[in-house]
């Protein structure tokens, strides 16, 4: 069977994970803060109140710092596709390229054009155009996120394409199936709405810090009020989109859902785990904690009596539930791989009849193609504890954020926020937990879908380029250094500007 270098695959994965995790420090703050700034800017435009102007300018300045440090860090991920993941890059063809190109051409230019107006436009362009430019930046950055997430969603649920055996590339058959698949839509909504939580927590954390230092009290109280409303709405929305995403995962990536809930043996009326710990046993008694009876079946299929397949059902098969075993899929996958090789050989020798037969054989087994690269049925199981804990910590924190925003809103409206030191201290630290939840969301999405680069079609192990491991290690450490320097620079500049605080005389901009 195809041999691959485990160290090369692992280092390539580690490098991609490192780059993505660092990139995701900057992105959610940009997405979330942009709307808060646009809202404040609109309030200034409508009221002409200098306090709104100060708020807009201060948060815009912090937005600008984050944007400047984070800009282009995502480009590195695209470099990695071409260098480290060339088999994958070739195999996905224009499906992956098209959304990324649209992102680059439309969204990025929209964003980058109006960001100049946003920062340089004070007293230089009309107030209306200036305010609108803030909204264009917010929508542009969210539009960028949409296309990137469409590309990611396609890897999780490959739809709307046709594999071309002559070019060995997937070709887009229906753009709208790719762009508007439920996986893409739910992923986008869930991801950007949790980014709005990050933006809200950031504003709250900085404002709470001001109040604890007895500085800019009015400014901070107003900022907390806006951020807690935005955060509360976003965190409730996140819960709904998370629910829809989990239901979509149940249909398209059942193994990921089984790993998220550490469900080994599938069952009807499956329980959902809440707070607790996993034991070592790989069965359904592996959890000590609180379970919600039937909740997983409802979450996955909107029916308490629905059967939710577990890890063992997907590995060993379940005839009653019409689930093919991994062994059967491995066998069919190997047939598909061999048929593809035979097809190419027959074409080369101009044996058109044989080529047509092999093509039919290949197409009949294509949905199992990726399984043909495995030799052991257990290879299709992701890291269950990692996926389980990441999912549950993320959900737990998400629910706590709803309570935090509601509490902050209540305290703001009752004008009790200044006295509540405990709430203010929690608020300062909340941004850290926001980032933990946000990054864990990506761990669930990406670690939970292992071993696939493209679900069921292409495993990670055959997606890599034949590179020297040393070169991947070298760039791994270069990135580690580069991103760490950028992060330190961001924190340092940001903290300096926060310490300076808003210019309440309505001063300068970035």
């Amino acid at each position, binding site marked *: 069977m195809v041999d691959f270098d485990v160290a090369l695959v692992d280092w390539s994965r580690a490098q991609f994970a490192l780059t993505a995790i660092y990139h995701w420090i900057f992105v959610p703050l940009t997405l979330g803060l942009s709307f808060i700034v646009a809202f404040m800017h609109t309030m200034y435009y409508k009221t002409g109140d200098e306090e709104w102007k100060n708020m807009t300018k201060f948060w815009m300045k912090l937005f600008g710092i984050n944007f400047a440090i984070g800009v282009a860090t995502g480009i590195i991920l695209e470099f990695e596709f071409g260098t480290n993941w060339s088999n994958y890059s070739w195999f996905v063809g224009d499906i992956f390229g098209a959304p990324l190109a649209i992102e680059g051409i439309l969204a990025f230019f929209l964003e980058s054009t109006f960001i100049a107006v946003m920062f340089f436009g004070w007293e230089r362009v009309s107030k209306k155009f200036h305010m609108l430019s803030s909204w264009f930046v917010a929508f542009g950055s969210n539009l960028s996120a949409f296309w990137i997430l469409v590309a990611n969603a396609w890897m999780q649920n490959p739809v709307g394409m046709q594999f071309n055996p002559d070019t060995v590339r997937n070709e887009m058959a229906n753009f709208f199936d790719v762009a508007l698949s439920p996986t893409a839509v739910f992923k986008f909504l869930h991801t950007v709405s949790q980014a709005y939580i990050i933006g809200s927590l950031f504003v709250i954390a900085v404002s709470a810090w001001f109040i604890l230092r007895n500085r800019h009290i009015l400014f901070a109280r107003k900022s907390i009020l806006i951020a807690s409303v935005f955060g509360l709405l976003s965190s409730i929305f996140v819960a709904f989109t998370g629910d829809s995403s989990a239901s979509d995962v149940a249909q398209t990536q059942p193994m990921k859902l089984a790993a998220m809930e550490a469900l080994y043996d599938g069952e009807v009326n499956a329980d959902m785990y809440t707070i607790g710990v996993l034991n070592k046993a790989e069965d359904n008694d592996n959890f000590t904690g609180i379970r919600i009876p039937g909740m997983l079946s409802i979450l996955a299929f909107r029916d308490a009596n629905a059967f939710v397949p577990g890890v063992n059902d997907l590995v060993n098969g379940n005839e009653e539930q019409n689930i093919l075993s991994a062994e059967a899929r491995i066998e069919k996958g190997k047939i598909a791989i061999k048929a593809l090789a035979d097809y190419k050989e027959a074409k080369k020798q101009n044996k058109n009849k044989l080529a047509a037969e092999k093509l039919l054989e290949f197409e009949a087994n294509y949905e199992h193609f990726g399984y043909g690269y495995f030799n052991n049925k257990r290879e299709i199981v992701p890291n269950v504890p990692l996926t389980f804990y990441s999912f549950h910590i993320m959900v737990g924190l998400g629910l706590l954020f709803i309570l935090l925003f509601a509490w902050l809103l209540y305290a703001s409206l009752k004008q009790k926020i200044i006295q509540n030191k405990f709430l203010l201290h929690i608020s300062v630290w909340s941004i850290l937990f926001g980032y933990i939840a946000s990054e864990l969301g990506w761990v669930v999405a990406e670690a939970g879908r292992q071993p696939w680069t493209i679900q069921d079609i292409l495993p990670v192990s055959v997606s890599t380029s034949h590179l020297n491991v040393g070169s991947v290690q070298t760039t791994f450490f270069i990135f580690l250094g580069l991103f760490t320097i950028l992060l330190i620079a961001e924190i340092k500049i940001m903290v300096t500007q926060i310490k300076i605080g808003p210019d309440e005389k309505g001063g300068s901009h*970035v």
Partner: protein
Amino acid sequence: MKRIINFYIEGFKSLQSHGIKLWIIIMIKLFIIFFILKVFFFRDFLDTKFDNNTDKSNYVIEQLTKQ
């Protein structure tokens, strides 16, 4: 056109010290990304080995189907 150029010139002229610092960081970062990382470390793997798409697809299929 002149107004747009002036808009940018005026904008850059009015930058505060942290704004200048950010632009320096952006420039250094872009230089590292596009002129060091891309040129020396992240050349497209298939482009460096093959001149045309047929050779690239033959190579990938060989990678995907070797037994």
